[in-house]
């Protein structure tokens, strides 16, 4: 059996190893992904994002329980940050989900953001494909805190949850730009805390002011939740289903959503690959070090160094 065949048949070890190979950017992994692609597109992908400590992992843990009760198989990708100093990472999201580890219908994988040269987006996207091809009905992708990269990731989700906690009024303002484009559901977690009404009102105002930008004609609902006590979690599942039905119910919306997802996936893949290929070549050939030394010695300026590097590799590089 080929690796791809094993994964389609649900082989956990083969899938786990492929995700490692993807993370380590092995060229063989790409070949397997090509074979797997025809088997993807069936899973429903839910992105969960929000600032650190708002309760994303706890929420994911509860969502798993509800999805399993509904008879769905679940894949989880939990991303934690890589230390920029050592390159190491502590992947601790699993602590909150470990009660599901013996459930054959659940596959949980922790991933690190890895180096500064991207890769997070692409390897997570590819890992989604792996879990999808394995036949998971629903894939939950838990990102690190909110930032540009995470917004990229949620673009490959069918439904995106933005998790907040009360008392983040100013943070909501800070997140305002762009947040409506990515959020399909807003979850105010730890709703037993003071200030929950204020947070909900702030959110509501913000959402209603931005009516023109509702993604695919969907007005994002706001849900108050206490994930740790499993309060309001069932309602999240119901809203995810409503959102899915909303998109599915119109062929125009359906094709638009698919177009966005595929377009985004392809353009990110190209971007990631170009960065990877050019940088590998630069580093391995020693050209980066040479250019760096020239700039350090003030023999050339960094703009010229960059021009030289680009024009050598791309025909229109100096335009």
């Amino acid at each position, binding site marked *: 059996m080929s690796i791809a065949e094993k994964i389609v048949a649900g082989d956990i070890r083969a899938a786990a*190893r492929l995700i*490692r190979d993807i993370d380590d950017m092995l060229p063989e992994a790409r070949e397997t992904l090509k074979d797997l692609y025809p088997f993807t597109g069936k899973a429903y992908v839910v992105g969960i994002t929000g600032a650190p400590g708002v309760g994303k992992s706890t929420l994911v843990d509860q969502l798993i329980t509800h999805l399993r009760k509904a008879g769905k198989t679940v894949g989880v990708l939990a991303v934690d940050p890589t230390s920029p100093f*050592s*390159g*190491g990472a*502590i992947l*601790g999201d*699993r602590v909150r989900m470990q009660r599901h580890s013996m459930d054959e219908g659940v596959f*949980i*994988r922790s991933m690190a953001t890895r180096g500064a040269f991207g890769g997070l987006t692409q390897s997570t996207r590819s890992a989604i494909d792996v879990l999808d091809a394995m036949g998971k009905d629903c894939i939950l992708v838990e990102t690190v805190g909110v930032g540009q990269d995470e917004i990229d990731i949620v673009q490959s989700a069918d439904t995106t949850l933005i998790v907040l906690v009360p008392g983040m009024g100013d943070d909501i303002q800070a997140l305002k730009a762009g947040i409506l484009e990515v959020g399909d559901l807003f979850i105010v977690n730890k709703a037993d805390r003071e200030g929950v009404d204020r947070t909900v009102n702030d959110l509501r105002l913000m959402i209603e002011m931005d009516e023109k930008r509702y993604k695919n004609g969907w007005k994002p609902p706001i849900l108050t939740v206490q994930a740790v006590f499993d309060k309001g979690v069932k309602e999240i599942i119901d809203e995810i289903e409503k959102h899915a039905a909303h998109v599915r119910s119109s062929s125009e919306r359906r094709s638009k959503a698919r177009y966005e997802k595929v377009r985004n996936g392809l353009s990110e893949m190209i971007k990631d690959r170009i960065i990877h290929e050019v940088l590998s070549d630069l580093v391995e050939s020693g050209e980066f070090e040479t250019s760096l030394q020239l700039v350090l010695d003030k023999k050339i300026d960094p703009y010229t160094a960059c021009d030289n590097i680009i024009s050598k590799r791309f025909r229109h590089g100096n335009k």
Partner: protein
Amino acid sequence: MNKKRRLRVLVAKPGLDGHDRGARIIARAYRDAGFEVVYTGLHQTPEEIVQAAIQEDVDMIGLSSLAGAHMYLFPRVVELLKERGAHDIVVCGGGIFPEEDIPKLKKAGIKEIFTPGTPLTEVVAWVEQNVEARR
């Protein structure tokens, strides 16, 4: 670019003991050494640990125990790994153990045992020398 594979390790607390300070410090030392460390938290059964290790595709499992049940829990992890065809995952342990248990644990397939007072640098160096990031 960087063709070297990054080491992935799982740090786990099997059994009923609730003291994970040591495990957390070890996890932190591994992170600082550049490893990706999956931490699964307290009160894990050997079955849960092995399942997590396979899903996470780790190269090594570090077991921490301070409560005395190591003679059952540690060998059980090794046994389950064998059953699942994952015997290439190295298992080591740390904690408080009666001296006479150490050779028995090693015989049961625990590759190394670290006791209180071992410098972190030594623990990290052992991993670097004895555990290889997968092929």
